[in-house]
């Protein structure tokens, strides 16, 4: 039995290495599926481009030129899979013509479970946060798995959201119920979900409004919202309670709250904060609310969805903060065009992603090409350059791990490789820190984070001499000359070829150590690239 396991392991590793060799070789590219843009698709993209161009004219700014295709591939890969592309993927990209590249890449990503798994985790943060929640009645993993399946099948987003808000049943067999059960407070008198927490989540995650600030008082910064707006929204969850068959809407006691200045708690009727005419006449309160939130005319829902998807792609929302979109405007022109497009295409998220990725702003460079002058803060503010943003912690971890492998680490990878990634990522994040729910809050890097990259275990383990597991050593072995080794290392980590001076400098470095220790020189090259600003930032 043991010998069988050993033989299987050796065979599979040998196969993996052979596979590596194939993908290392530029002459054997994988082909990508093409995507046909329709006329309406092109019209929408043109409208968006014109809207931004108008802004730039008004602001007196010259937008930067388009970014190299591989830079755009890196952005897409980071946004939708949480990692930089592998050499295997880059080779596949090189077989596609530039005008097809982005959409073909997206076609490939939408067939890859990494996109749905990663995006489900990102979205789940806004739905249920990152904390484990009540032990007995909440299973976060079930929720994210379910969400991933919905995204993979490209289920219309409004349907998905309706199912979350009106979820019924047991949290294990009906994973969407976890959106409700995460708010259960086992130490509270009410044995059911917390109405206020749910109202806060619904308003922020699905409407992009921060009405929960009014939980304890009327609006301090304006007169738009009253305390009752929040609690009347919370009242839609008043009937939801825990029963033997899970979450049901058979509670008899209405939601109660003691308003500021009142002596006693009172029954609160359910009411939406605006446009009550969109509420359907039938259904239980949560079903009614779900229909209202996702109503085709409920623009805050469409805008909030656009803002979130935009933020995933650019690592920065179109309107900041991500969950505080002004109800009465003004909005960037692009917001309205994209919201229209989303509604017209039945809340098809993949379509929305394709449209945004096709726009000029997504394709722009983040740096000026000489002799153009360097961009200023105003460029980023007006989306006249691609925003420079720090990679998220899990993107750093996944990218370090991916850069150590020539092939893509995905659901088809060897189980050992996947397990290694799982544990290495977990260990790294524990030390690096996880941004939690503050997904798009710009934060400074820290000294311990730098130390972790400079001297930490993960980077050392994945760059040191190891001909079986580490790309640094394997690239050194498989390259025909020093130049190819440097070029491949650059592709593996920066998703770009080296510039002339870089190529000449590092080739010289490798040459000097040729007879001494080339593996060590490759390790040093990997260390340098992984410790650079360029690696740690999305650009």
């Amino acid at each position, binding site marked *: 039995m043991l010998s069988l396991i050993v033989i299987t392991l050796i065979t599979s590793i040998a196969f993996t290495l052979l596979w590596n060799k194939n993908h290392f070789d530029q002459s054997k590219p994988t082909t990508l599926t093409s995507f046909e843009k329709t006329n309406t698709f092109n019209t929408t993209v043109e409208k968006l481009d014109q809207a931004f161009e108008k802004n730039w004219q008004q602001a007196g700014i010259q937008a930067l030129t388009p970014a190299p295709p591989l830079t755009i591939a890196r952005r897409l890969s980071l946004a939708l899979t949480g990692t930089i592309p592998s050499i295997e993927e880059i080779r596949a990209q090189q077989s596609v013509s530039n005008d097809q590249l982005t959409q073909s890449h997206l076609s490939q990503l939408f067939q890859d479970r990494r996109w749905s798994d990663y995006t489900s985790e990102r979205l789940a943060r806004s739905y*249920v*946060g990152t*904390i*484990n929640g*009540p032990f007995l009645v909440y299973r976060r993993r079930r929720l994210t798995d379910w969400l991933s399946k919905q995204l993979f099948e490209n289920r219309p987003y409004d349907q998905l959201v309706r199912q979350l808000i009106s979820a019924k049943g047991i949290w294990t067999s009906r994973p969407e119920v976890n959106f409700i059960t995460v708010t259960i*407070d*086992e*130490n*509270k008198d009410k044995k059911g979900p917390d109405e206020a*927490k749910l109202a*806060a*989540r619904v308003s*922020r995650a699905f409407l992009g409004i*921060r009405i*929960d*600030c009014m939980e304890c008082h009327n609006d301090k910064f304006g007169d738009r919202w009253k305390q009752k707006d929040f609690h009347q929204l919370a009242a839609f969850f008043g009937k939801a309670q825990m029963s033997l068959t899970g979450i049901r809407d058979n509670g008899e006691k209405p939601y109660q709250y003691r308003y500021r200045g009142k002596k006693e708690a009172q029954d609160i009727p359910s009411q939406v904060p605006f446009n009550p005419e969109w509420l359907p006449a039938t259904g239980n309160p949560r079903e009614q609310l779900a229909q209202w939130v996702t109503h085709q005319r409920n623009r805050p829902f469409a805008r909030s969805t656009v803002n979130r998807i935009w933020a995933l792609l650019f690592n920065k929302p179109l309107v900041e*903060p991500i969950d*505080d979109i002004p109800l009465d405007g003004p909005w960037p022109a692009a917001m309205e065009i994209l919201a229209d497009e989303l509604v017209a295409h039945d809340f098809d998220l993949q379509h929305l992603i394709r449209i945004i990725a096709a726009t000029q702003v997504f394709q722009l460079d*983040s*740096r*000026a090409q*000489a002799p*153009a002058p*360097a*961009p*200023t803060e105003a460029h980023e503010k007006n989306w006249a350059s691609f925003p420079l943003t720090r990679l998220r912690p899990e993107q750093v971890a996944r990218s370090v791990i991916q850069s150590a492998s020539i092939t893509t680490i995905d659901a088809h990878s060897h189980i050992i490789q996947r397990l290694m990634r799982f544990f290495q990522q977990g260990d790294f994040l*524990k*030390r690096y*820190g996880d941004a*939690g*729910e*503050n997904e798009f*809050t710009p*934060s*400074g*890097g*820290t*000294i*311990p*984070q*730098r*130390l*972790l990259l*400079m*001297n*930490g275990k993960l980077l050392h383990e994945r760059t040191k001499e190891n001909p079986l597991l580490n790309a640094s050593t394997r690239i050194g072995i498989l390259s025909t000359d020093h130049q190819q080794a440097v070029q491949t290392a650059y592709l593996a980590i920066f998703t770009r070829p080296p510039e002339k*001076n*870089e190529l000449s*400098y590092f080739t010289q470095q490798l040459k000097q150590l040729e007879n001494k220790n080339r593996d*060590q020189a490759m390790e*040093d090259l990997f*260390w*340098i*690239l992984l*410790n*650079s*600003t*360029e690696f*740690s*930032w999305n650009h």
Partner: protein
Amino acid sequence: MNRRNFLHTSAAGLSAFSWMTPMADALALNATQSKSTRPKSVIILWLAGGPSQLETFDPHPGSSISYGTKSIPTAVKGMNLAAGLEQSAEVMNHVSLIRSVTSKEGDHERAFYNIKTGYRPNPTVVHPSIGSILCHQLPNPKIEIPSHISILPNQWPARGGYLGAQYDAFQMGDPKQPVPDVIPHASSQRQKQRRQGLSLIESSFAKGRLKQLDEQKTHHLQNMANARKLMQSDQLKAFDVSQAPKAERLAYGDTRFGRACFAALRLVEAGVRCIEVTLSGWDSHANNHESQGKRIQTLDPAFAALIKDLKRRDLLDSTTVLCGGEFGRTPQLNAAEGRDHWPKGFSMAIAGGGIQGGRIIGATDPSGEKEQPVNPVRVQDIHATIQHQMGIDFEEELITPVGRPIALSDGSLIEELL
């Protein structure tokens, strides 16, 4: 000659000049400063998993809920501890006990969040832990090593929350091991070459971008330079407990936790603002008495030695020590002779930093029938009191990234401790 080499030489032959080092500076500074101006620190000993109040700080010997747990007298008349805490008993004149801590969180993760931040988990904002608040409110520009440190953290180390990742605790393991991530894996010659290569790449990246990219936006190189400074800092010696006399070290017990508590003392001397040390393994759902007993053997010498040493080094007045878990344990034993989670009345020990010693706040019911303790103290009240003692206005509201103003603590002062 770099600083490290210089120090090495100093140690070999120029020890007379060692007072010139920053570490010596820090120690000398501490010694010369008056009590009122000395920088204040906090050490928190987290007993993770939920220690039983009945087997530690709140025994009820002879009652039906003691199930045989005995108590011992302490240096304070009328204040008893559970048997097993004999060394701690000797220092209780410096320590007060809050025996009526209440919270609403009975799940480990949520309760840990609650006890570390003073707030219950909230779907819209991540609150900073108390150490992060202290570092944010009381920055110490003189310190080169992190001023918020978590030794032996469990899966929930202290985080900066809405204050930002720069206030996360620096995590480290057993002080017997080298400090993590500060020792390069390459020779100094290779490090030099790496720096040269990096400099070339950085100038390529900066081309065509914002002027003063690093200063205004990325802070990458700045953080890297500070990281290198830390790697060479003499203050790192504070982590190295092996340099201290053996007897001094062993007084804390020859355990990871003991060494961590000793390191915490040295880090306070070096000017670190907050150190949390975690002792896990208190979650005794089965065989409560046996598993609590084992943990107590580790806790007792370390806690007692820490208080004694702080006092001996005249640091107790400027250092608050807090010791307790995320919740307590049920008065009744379950079928497996374990005690389950109990957030409705548990104990925390608190000492130093201007807190009066030898006091007992609140009481739990000896029969275990009344759930509500006498004079209940909420978790946030402990946070408010510690912050107040550090000179922080805990009622100050900060505007969080979600746009919501949140007070540093929404607790009240525990007047009886002051």
